[in-house]
């Protein structure tokens, strides 16, 4: 019994890492713009396809590259292009609406999400694609638990990215600018902070982090389809809200909580059918008792 619990905990940690990586994108954009980027799940989907394209290209080269190089190449390529996509979406779809009512921006975000889904569908067709095995398919037995290279790498990569992001936001000038914009957007330009550039960089950063999640998700669940971002996007969004939207550490915590909900629901309840029920109930309860999320601070409307 303890072994099963341990194994499930490990699986939850892996899935939670992916959720946390995507939740970061939601929370960063909300923190800086108080806008929910509903296209983020689909940006994640596009990133998975981008890393698939890069991986297939690198594997197809007659160079016989070692798999670790293919993996790194796919990761960097996908992070770079997805960052560009995030910047592009912000520049074309959200920036023109920055002064418009917040509802317009949310609807635009939903529209961008639909556009990305159906654009992918139109180009690649509805049939699911297989993600190649970039990491060895061995399993390690550690204290009765089964551990795979994908699992280990997902958890490690997510941890490294989260630590780097935390340092970036708390210790660097860019991070300070981001926090400043989140704190009081009207005043910050007067201090000489290039607001537009900082917002663009935030989108780039959030999308690139989602791309890391996309590659790790593709390796763990190697069947990609154009609608895969919808459910994962929703779950990551709940993760961001549970942790306290706008709070970066909260998004990480929320991601792991949602990963645990998904893995442990079928363990304690008869079927995984209850999964969404459990997740949304958790969200509702939390919103009733702690509307700002676990780590969020109350926001005061400034008059």
């Amino acid at each position: 019994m303890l072994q099963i619990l341990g194994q499930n905990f490990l699986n939850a940690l892996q899935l939670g890492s992916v959720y946390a990586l995507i939740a970061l994108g939601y929370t960063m954009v909300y923190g800086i713009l108080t806008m929910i980027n509903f296209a983020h799940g689909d940006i994640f989907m596009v990133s998975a396809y981008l890393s698939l394209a890069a991986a297939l290209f690198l594997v197809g080269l007659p160079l016989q590259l070692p798999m670790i190089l293919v993996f790194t190449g796919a990761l960097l390529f996908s992070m770079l292009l997805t960052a560009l996509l995030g910047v592009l979406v912000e520049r074309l779809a959200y920036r023109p609406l920055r002064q418009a009512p917040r509802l317009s921006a949310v609807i635009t975000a939903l529209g961008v999400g639909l556009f990305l889904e159906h654009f992918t569908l139109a180009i690649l067709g509805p049939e699911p694609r297989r993600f190649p095995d970039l990491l060895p398919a061995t399993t390690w037995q550690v204290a009765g638990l089964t551990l795979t290279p994908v699992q280990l790498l997902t958890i490690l990569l997510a941890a490294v990215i989260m630590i780097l992001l935390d340092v970036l936001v708390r210790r660097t000038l860019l991070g300070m600018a981001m926090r400043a914009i989140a704190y009081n957007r009207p005043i910050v330009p007067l201090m000489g902070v290039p607001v537009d550039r900082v917002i663009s960089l935030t989108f780039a950063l959030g999308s690139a982090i989602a791309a890391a999640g996309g590659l790790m998700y593709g390796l763990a669940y190697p069947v990609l389809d154009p609608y895969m971002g919808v459910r994962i996007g929703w779950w990551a969004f709940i993760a961001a809200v549970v942790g306290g939207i706008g709070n970066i550490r909260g998004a990480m915590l929320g991601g792991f909580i949602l990963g645990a909900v998904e893995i442990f629901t079928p363990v304690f309840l008869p079927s995984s059918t209850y999964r969404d029920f459990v997740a949304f109930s958790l969200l509702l309860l939390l919103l009733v008792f702690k509307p700002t999320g676990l780590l969020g601070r109350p926001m005061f409307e400034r008059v």
Partner: protein
Amino acid sequence: MNWPTWIVLTVLTCSLAFGGCAPKETNDIRIGVNAEITGSKPTVGDSCKNAAQLLVTQVNADGGLKVGDKKWPVTLFIEDNEDKPESAAAVAKKLISQNNVLAILGPNASGNAIPAARICEDAKVIMITPWSTNPKTTENMKYVFRACFVDDFQGQVMAKFARDNLKANTAAVLYDVASEYNKGIAEIFKKEFEAMGGKVVAFESYTKDDKDFSSQLTKIKAANPDVLFLPNYYNEVPLQVQQARRLGLTCAIIGSDSWGSDELLKLGGKDLEGCFFSTHYAPDIATPEAQKFIKEYEAKYGKKPDDVAALTYDSLNLLLTAISKAGSLDRQKVRDALANITEFEGVTGKMKFKGTGDPIKSAVIIQIKDGKFTYFDSVAP
């Protein structure tokens, strides 16, 4: 009224008088094909049309079908049902009232076959569906037949296969609880496997669109079964098999006819090696009937026939056999002859009818070997 109007009226009246009532006495055997030629399953309609045309060409090259002491040519009326239930019903109506067909082949998908079956039953016209495995298609119908086995049967076949061929004492099942097809087969499998003295040690479910099955598979691994049964669709099975293997599950893995798509091999890769599933037909099956059909089909259309093509060929062949046996073109007599065919050697194996629309026939077990579907065994009911 000026003279052009008179001409139009006269022509209209004449065409009504002569064309409106189709002659009851025809000098050919008319068979309708109600197929999914456009819509979301165009390959299904294509295979159905091709196989039917292949057999009709062969029969007519022989001078036609011998009924009583006269040879009759066979004529096909092929109509597209667009893979929509309402047009499947409309096509059935049209074939009956305008083309005055003796019998109808298709539709293939259960969603289309069920409404069309109602129309044929009411008109007392024989309908044979090649591919619809849903029990509801033929339930309480006198004139509706099928050439494939029913969903429930697969559960039995795989239980028997696991017990007898794989010598499994314990089994685990993972199935989609939201789909009638998966759930039905899973429950029958459990019942039959336990009736044969085995034990189902884990019976786990998930919901459509799940990608992570690790908690269910962890439970299954802890139960340590001899065999894992996955009666799920080809786009989910590769993930399930891969995750099972990554968790260290080494037992045999088996499935149902929903695995039978080339997509499965594309998505699954090496992990699927050695898995088994039940289906209607195997292209490399060894019977002379099947070999002959595959050779002729390939020669005519340049591709290997799939299970729909094989089942359509068998459906039409069953119908023609029944017409020959009845010795008459009377629908009632042909229907009775068809319902009492006791011996039929088809491309998809031996089958017989026992008064109802569902045949008693064996299923084929396929093994995935070197990245290909390979014939392994046939299981009789």
